């Protein structure tokens, strides 16, 4: 590492100090808080609950519980009048803990927390008793159901009495973002972030930008030249002074946490030219060549007027402090093992990417040739390396089969077949497919075009892929056959001069970025979001966002859309200069901590908790709330119960257990 970076460390310390303050807050607040005055509100849910549960009896039982100042019922607690009842009681009766016995918390927890907040109460002083999903909808005996509802309410009251006000964890955030990967997604995210005013470091491992799109000719759905799209993106990104581009650079390691990450980068020497890499596989050279052509100036060894790309010639290391990271590392193309559909054995069997390059180089108006032989018929096979079937396909180098659909290859293949028929109307095209998944706007049109252009479709079953053999003594060098679903499963054969495999997208190796941060991946190997619908571009690791195909197969439109979403999320996270996190993390009571460090040993998360020196000379555990995930593993092992989870204390759980058992025995004894 060239230069040690003190700055981020300093920031981290600051964050720590600030966090300690946050930690102290609940205790202060607790001191201020009065004795718990619990309000219990039991909902009829318009009959959904009251048809089975005797709601009035539950409220009457609740009123007898210690700490409860009022227990009321309402037809719909979530309605405006229902909410008003709570607000009034807070104002008039001094209710300072609220229990609503109603539907599942997933439905209205935030609704009722909102009432507390609007009434000037800390929203974390709310607890729910789920007497609809867990009682009235699952038990039909009225007595039994009422008894259970009462028990759940008493447990909720027990917990509510022990709730303390909490504040979200706030940590200072650096107004800078690292975008890893310089494909369309990375470029889009970088530009959006810079426009929002953040400093962006764009890190690309290759010497040129653009990723896979740099190797494409025309882009579906509207046949826009890939070069145009990419030039616009590159120019925008390179013209923006807030974006620093590091090509030929990889992430060595990452440390820190949301708001204060530090990326350690390795940049390779730049003087290397493409021609000077004789042992590189020839396909790579042509494609890189092509990229350099298209993106002159960002390529190796070429100076670009006031280019922000480092111009020195030696390999070097750098460190970049950022508040958030956008992963835009893209995908890898599936590489068929030798012999799959004749790949690697028959020279006429190529991938779709090779085909695109080949077609773009064939002069119009002639008979196209491949390896000097005329091409009169071309076959395309869909789903190569995608939608693989257990027991039919061999697991790849990663030990997995690829069950996922790569989503872009159907339309890309149709688009290519149309391009072929347009450019060379005498060349026959065949497509072997399972289903046509042309799902996007303007995609299905390419299927229409292809069928009207007399592309002949043959449908195979995933469990019985087409067979490919050399056409010995035939008019065509390659024969492809399948049990054609459109011809009642008859075996149908075609002769072709070129066989194109629509190879799918597989998860790329994200490298040290992923290992350093332990980024979760899904079963198919792609980086995984927290929730596909609710938090679609966020990673479980706070501050890491997903853009483009590193998450799942996407086309350019979708890649850019997710990149913009990731940029917006990153901006939202960092805009205020502070990051707010859930307060449900561990906290240590220094009074009780005797310095056993059992918690530190047990904690599964690096740097979430550590022993710190106290002014009085003792060593006590201290939690870093920015890193602590709130699992509670530490809580279970502390011999002095000095550590607890905010909002989910062990003491509260024990009180709930007592309350449940008390109601269980009492009520049934009635």
């Amino acid at each position, binding site marked *: 590492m060239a230069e040690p970076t003190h700055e981020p460390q300093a920031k981290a310390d600051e964050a720590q100090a600030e966090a300690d303050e946050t930690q102290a807050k609940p205790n202060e607040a607790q001191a201020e808080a009065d004795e718990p005055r619990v309000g219990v509100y039991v909902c009829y849910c318009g009959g959904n609950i009251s048809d089975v549960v005797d709601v009035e009896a539950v409220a009457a039982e609740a009123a007898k519980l210690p700490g409860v100042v009022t227990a009321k019922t309402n037809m719909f607690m979530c309605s405006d009048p229902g909410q008003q009842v709570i607000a009034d009681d807070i104002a008039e009766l001094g209710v300072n803990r609220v229990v609503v016995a109603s539907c599942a918390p997933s439905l209205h927890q935030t609704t009722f927390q909102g009432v507390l907040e609007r009434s000037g109460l800390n929203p974390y002083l709310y607890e729910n008793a789920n007497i609809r999903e867990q009682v009235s909808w699952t*038990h039909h005996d009225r007595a039994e159901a009422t*008894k259970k509802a009462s028990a759940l309410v008493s447990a909720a009251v027990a917990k509510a009495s022990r709730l303390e006000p909490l504040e979200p964890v706030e940590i200072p955030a650096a107004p800078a973002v690292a975008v890893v990967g310089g494909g369309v997604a990375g470029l889009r995210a970088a530009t959006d972030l810079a426009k929002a005013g953040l400093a962006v470091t764009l890190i690309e491992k290759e010497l040129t930008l653009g990723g896979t799109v740099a190797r494409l000719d025309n882009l579906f759905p509207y046949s826009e030249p890939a070069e145009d799209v990419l030039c616009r993106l590159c120019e925008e990104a390179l013209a923006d002074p807030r974006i620093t581009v590091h090509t030929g650079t990889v992430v060595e390691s990452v440390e820190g946490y949301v708001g204060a990450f530090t990326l350690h980068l390795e940049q390779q020497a730049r003087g290397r030219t493409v021609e000077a890499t004789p042992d590189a596989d020839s396909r790579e050279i042509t494609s890189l060549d092509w990229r350099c052509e298209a993106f002159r100036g960002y390529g190796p060894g070429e100076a670009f007027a006031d280019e922000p790309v480092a111009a020195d010639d030696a390999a070097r290391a750098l460190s970049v402090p950022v508040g958030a990271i956008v992963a835009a590392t893209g995908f890898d193309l599936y590489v068929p093992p030798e012999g799959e559909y004749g790949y690697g054995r028959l020279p006429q069997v190529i991938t779709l990417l090779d085909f695109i390059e080949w077609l773009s180089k064939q002069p119009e108006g002639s008979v196209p040739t491949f390896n000097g032989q005329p091409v009169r018929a071309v076959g395309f096979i869909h789903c190569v390396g995608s939608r693989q079937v257990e027991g039919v396909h061999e697991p790849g180098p990663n030990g997995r089969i690829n069950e996922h659909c790569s989503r872009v290859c159907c339309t890309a293949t149709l688009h290519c077949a149309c391009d072929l028929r347009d450019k060379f109307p005498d060349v026959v095209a065949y497509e072997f497919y399972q289903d046509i998944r042309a799902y996007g706007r303007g995609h299905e049109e390419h299927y229409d075009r292809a069928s009207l252009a007399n592309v002949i479709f043959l449908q195979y079953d995933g469990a019985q892929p087409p067979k490919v053999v050399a056409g010995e003594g035939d008019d065509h060098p390659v024969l492809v056959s399948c049990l054609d679903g459109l011809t009642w499963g008859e075996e149908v054969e075609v002769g072709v001069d070129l066989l194109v495999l629509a190879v799918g997208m597989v998860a790329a190796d994200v490298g040290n970025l992923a290992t350093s941060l332990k980024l979760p991946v899904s079963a198919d190997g792609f980086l995984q979001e927290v929730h596909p619908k609710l938090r679609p571009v966020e990673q479980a690791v706070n501050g890491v966002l997903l853009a483009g195909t590193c998450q799942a197969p996407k086309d350019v439109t979708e890649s850019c859309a997710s990149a913009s979403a990731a940029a917006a999320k990153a901006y939202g996270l960092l805009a205020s200069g502070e990051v707010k996190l859930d307060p449900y993390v561990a906290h240590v009571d220094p009074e009780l901590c005797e310095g056993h460090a059992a918690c530190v040993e047990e904690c599964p998360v690096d740097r979430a908790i550590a022993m710190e020196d106290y002014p009085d000379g003792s060593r006590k555990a201290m939690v870093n709330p920015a890193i602590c995930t709130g699992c*509670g593993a530490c809580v*279970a092992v502390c011999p002095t119960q000095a550590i607890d989870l905010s909002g989910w204390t*062990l003491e509260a759980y024990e009180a*709930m*257990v007592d309350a449940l*058992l*008390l109601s269980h025995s009492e009520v*049934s004894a009635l």
Partner: protein
Amino acid sequence: MHPAPEQTEPPILVLATSSCAYIAADAVGQAHLEHPANTYVMRVPAPVVFPDSFYYDCFEKGFAGIIVMSCGHECPYPGAFERLTKRIDRVKMGLKERGLDPARLRLTAVCTVCTKAYLKEINAMDALVRAAASAAAVTADGGDAT
């Protein structure tokens, strides 16, 4: 503390993770799938928070069975599930030493849509604790109850 009177159903405690099993319990409710009412669900971020003593206390206080419904390997907290399995194994041994059937403590993974698994676990535990309760009642009738 509050030993359940003989005539009540033996109570069962369900520790359900917020990200998985608690959502499955909601799904059971949404599907109106009836099951024994002597089950009490407590929502927890990760059950690894409970020390060994918590389980012993629960049994001592009167729970007849405990089902820990975790997210299994889907656990959003890295490292938590591995620690939890170790703890539960240890507590089961402890229960044996205390003369309690270790089957009364069950660790299982229930995903957000696992309504069938949820019901299966509940019903199995219910059958187990009822059988044990009636066996105990027979012994009690036999005369030499303390």
